[in-house]
């Protein structure tokens, strides 16, 4: 499996069928998740807003999952200088930012009816907000440095520094929250998750992951083509 991803040509062949397959899996899982989602009875406590949970929790999970992928790709790109890892890191960042933005918007829409304010300084939402700033910093750095190879390495270093800081940020925000306002509703543990909600939730999480997998592979293919075009164009000039 790893061998297929290391060599660019073999990766292109592998991703050629893997990407659409993951896309289809994502659609199927999402459809199943939504069907179960809208059959579930409204939650006695949150009422109908519980349905937002089915698209907020997967997005929040993906925002961190993608950052972990970004960190691993950056590490491989920095240490092994592997062109594919660099392409993977570059391709992952915008997707991660997208999921993080989704998590923030759906989180705020979920918090609004229960808390009465558009933005709720809940520890999980605040961590997602800081994570969003990490993504913005990553993409800003990559865009600002002129030389592409140097931009990729600088951004990879920042991604690793960010990855190390992520758990610390989580902890500091949770500690900060305990200082200011008691516990909160959206805590990961939260009220026990009724079984009827667990199935759709898991389906949606796996749907998001499969979807991300498909998009990531396609974006990496795009990066590989972009680099090939750049190299060929340069050689034609040389």
């Amino acid at each position, binding site marked *: 499996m790893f061998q297929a991803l290391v060599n660019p040509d073999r990766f292109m062949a592998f991703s050629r069928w893997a990407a659409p397959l993951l896309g289809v899996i994502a659609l199927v899982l999402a459809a199943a998740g939504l069907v179960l989602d809208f059959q579930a009875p409204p939650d006695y406590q949150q009422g109908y807003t519980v349905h937002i949970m089915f698209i907020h929790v997967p997005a929040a999970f993906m925002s961190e999952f993608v950052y972990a992928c970004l960190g691993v790709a950056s590490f491989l790109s920095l240490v092994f200088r592997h062109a594919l890892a660099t392409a993977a890191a570059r391709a992952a960042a915008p997707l991660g930012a997208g999921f993080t933005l989704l998590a923030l918007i759906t989180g705020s829409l979920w918090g609004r009816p229960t808390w009465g304010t558009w933005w709720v300084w809940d520890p999980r939402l605040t961590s997602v907000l800081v994570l969003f700033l990490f993504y913005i910093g990553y993409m800003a750095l990559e865009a600002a440095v002129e*030389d*592409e*190879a140097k931009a990729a390495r600088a951004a990879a270093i920042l991604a690793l520094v960010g990855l190390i800081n992520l758990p610390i940020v989580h902890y500091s925000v949770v500690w900060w929250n305990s200082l200011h306002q008691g516990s909160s509703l959206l805590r990961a543990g939260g009220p026990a998750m009724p079984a009827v909600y667990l199935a759709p939730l898991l389906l949606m999480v796996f749907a998001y992951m499969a979807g991300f997998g498909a998009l990531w592979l396609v974006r990496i293919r795009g990066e590989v083509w972009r*680099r090939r075009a*750049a*190299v060929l164009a*340069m050689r034609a000039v*040389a």
Partner: protein
Amino acid sequence: MISAVSIEGLGVARGDRPLITGFNLALEAGEAVALAGRNGAGKTSLLRAIAGLIRPSGGRVVFRSGDAEIPPEDAIARDAHLIGHQDGLKLSRSAWDEVLFQVLWSGGTAASARSACARLGLTNLLGLQVRKLSAGQRRRLALARLAASPRSLWLLDEPLAPLDRDQRAVVGELMAEHLAGGGLILAAAHDPLPVTARPVEIGG
């Protein structure tokens, strides 16, 4: 103490564009080589690759002391000078502060710095701010560490460009003494070096 440098199949690229491929060169103690080639051929990148600042895309550089091989980082950090296009001097500081730092940093002493400055005719400029010095004077400040800090391998990139005729003569003497003492010089230059040097073409 580097006594020989052998470059084996070195490849240097800028971004995706290969500048130099399969470059070979053997440099022995007491020998000077002049790198020639049109601008952009990669002379500067080659020197920076030998100095370890740029990662070569292929091949390797071997430093030997006698017949023992020295790891490149130690060889460069302890026993090589790299003088690039820029002089690395802070405009707001005094000439003496800057040249003293450059000399101490490359292993010289305050005394050797003062004598090197005297040799290069810089003594009465040392109190001035670097901002007030001409390009030639600044270049000589940067070259002072060659005389003040004993290092065997000199990697020079257009070292004499801003200097006038008799200043070049002084630097020529320094080079001759360095070669006589078993030193090695690898210099990129358009006009010929003031010492006898083996010409090597880059990117022909």
